[in-house]
């Protein structure tokens, strides 16, 4: 620190009343005999004066009432034996798991197939990684498929160039959304349900309800495309 900086820091300490009596007296004597030092002290004191002159903001008249309401909510939460997540998440997961298990047990078309049977991309994945939900990892390109399956609007897709069996990503209309899409959507929802917000919980239940409705429709109605 330069001598000038050190001297200025002492001026600040003088303003703040942080010098001893002897230090303060010596510095005031120096200020008396040094015009530049005096001018600097005045400039620094001017800052404090300007800060103190700033007008305090007005406070909302209902701020204390809002605080009291928050305190009341806080007290209510503390009295609740468990937070909403403590019981809602396991309940939703249990319902989802039961519905999923029930749906998987039903044949969905003339021949019984699995996700891996119908999705060539998943055939390369060991079955142990596909079936148990907790360890299932979506390939990156499947993420878009999940988005297709979970949105109402049709998503533009590019025609596959190579002659390969229809990929999961190739569903072109909502009606053509096949079982593998829905399964992937459910898997995705279960993954997100564990980690994210309540909204996923609701999405999952909606997806499962839609799935049930679809299964209850006459077989011919699903082959419109």
């Amino acid at each position, binding site marked *: 620190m330069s001598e000038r900086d050190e001297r200025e820091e002492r001026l*600040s300490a003088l303003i703040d009343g942080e010098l001893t009596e002897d230090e303060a007296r010596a510095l005031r004597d120096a200020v008396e005999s040094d015009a530049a030092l005096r001018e600097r002290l005045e400039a620094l004191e001017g800052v404090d004066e300007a800060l103190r002159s*700033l007008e305090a903001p007005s406070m909302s008249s209902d701020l204390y009432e809002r*605080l009291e309401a928050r305190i009341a909510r806080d007290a209510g939460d503390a009295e609740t034996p468990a937070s909403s997540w403590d019981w809602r998440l396991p309940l939703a997961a249990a319902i989802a798991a039961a519905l999923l298990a029930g749906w998987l047990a039903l044949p969905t078309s003339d021949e019984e197939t699995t996700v891996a049977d119908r999705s060539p991309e998943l055939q390369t994945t060991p079955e142990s990684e596909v079936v148990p939900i907790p360890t299932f990892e979506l390939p990156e390109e499947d993420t878009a498929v999940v988005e297709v399956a979970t949105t109402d609007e049709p998503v533009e897709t590019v025609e596959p160039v190579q002659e390969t069996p229809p990929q999961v990503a190739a569903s072109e209309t909502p009606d053509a959304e096949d079982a593998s899409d829905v399964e992937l959507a459910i898997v995705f929802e279960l993954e997100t349900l564990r980690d994210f917000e309540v909204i996923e919980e609701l999405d999952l239940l909606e997806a499962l309800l839609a799935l049930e409705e679809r299964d209850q429709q006459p077989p011919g109605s699903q082959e419109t495309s």
Partner: protein
Amino acid sequence: MRDADPDVQQMLAFCAGDDSAFASLFERWGRPLLHYLQRIVGDAATAEELVQEAFLRVHRARDRYRPDAKFSTWLYRIGTNLALNELRRPRRSRPHDSADEVGDEDRAPLHLVASGPAADRQLDVRRRTSRVEAALEDIPERQRMAIWLSAVEGMSYAEVAVALETTEKSVKSLVHRARVALADRMAKVGEDGIAGTGGSAN
């Protein structure tokens, strides 16, 4: 010393079941804390939320409060931490980002309805206020906090150190650097303003 702090006594009364003591503490410290937080986060609505949150934490502490410091020092420490958390969030548009809230010296003459020495003095005060507001937004947040607590709230370096969770030596440096930075910015804006006025006159 701390036990002599009337606010600590109020807090202890609140801990003992006197809810009106909590209301008194809010009455005494709500607005100064709001002013401090608004200068730090730059947004009145956010500052009010933080005041609420700070007092909510004071309320929650009623079963475990220990008067280790003056009540105001403790309260400002809570407020400071909340403000720092708020500032660490992804930046939202804040009113002080807009020219409407930043001191605009050009608008000052519009409010001037009188002339003469009193009006000149009023204009000087307004200009200085605008300059210090603009300069305050321009310096680092820790410096802003330190100079505010020291110069406006009148805290000692030791108290500011508690509020900012740092050392007295660091506070001394923060306060000094803030004061110098503000003085230099205010002087520069003043010079620019004079130069600008002269230029436009010609």
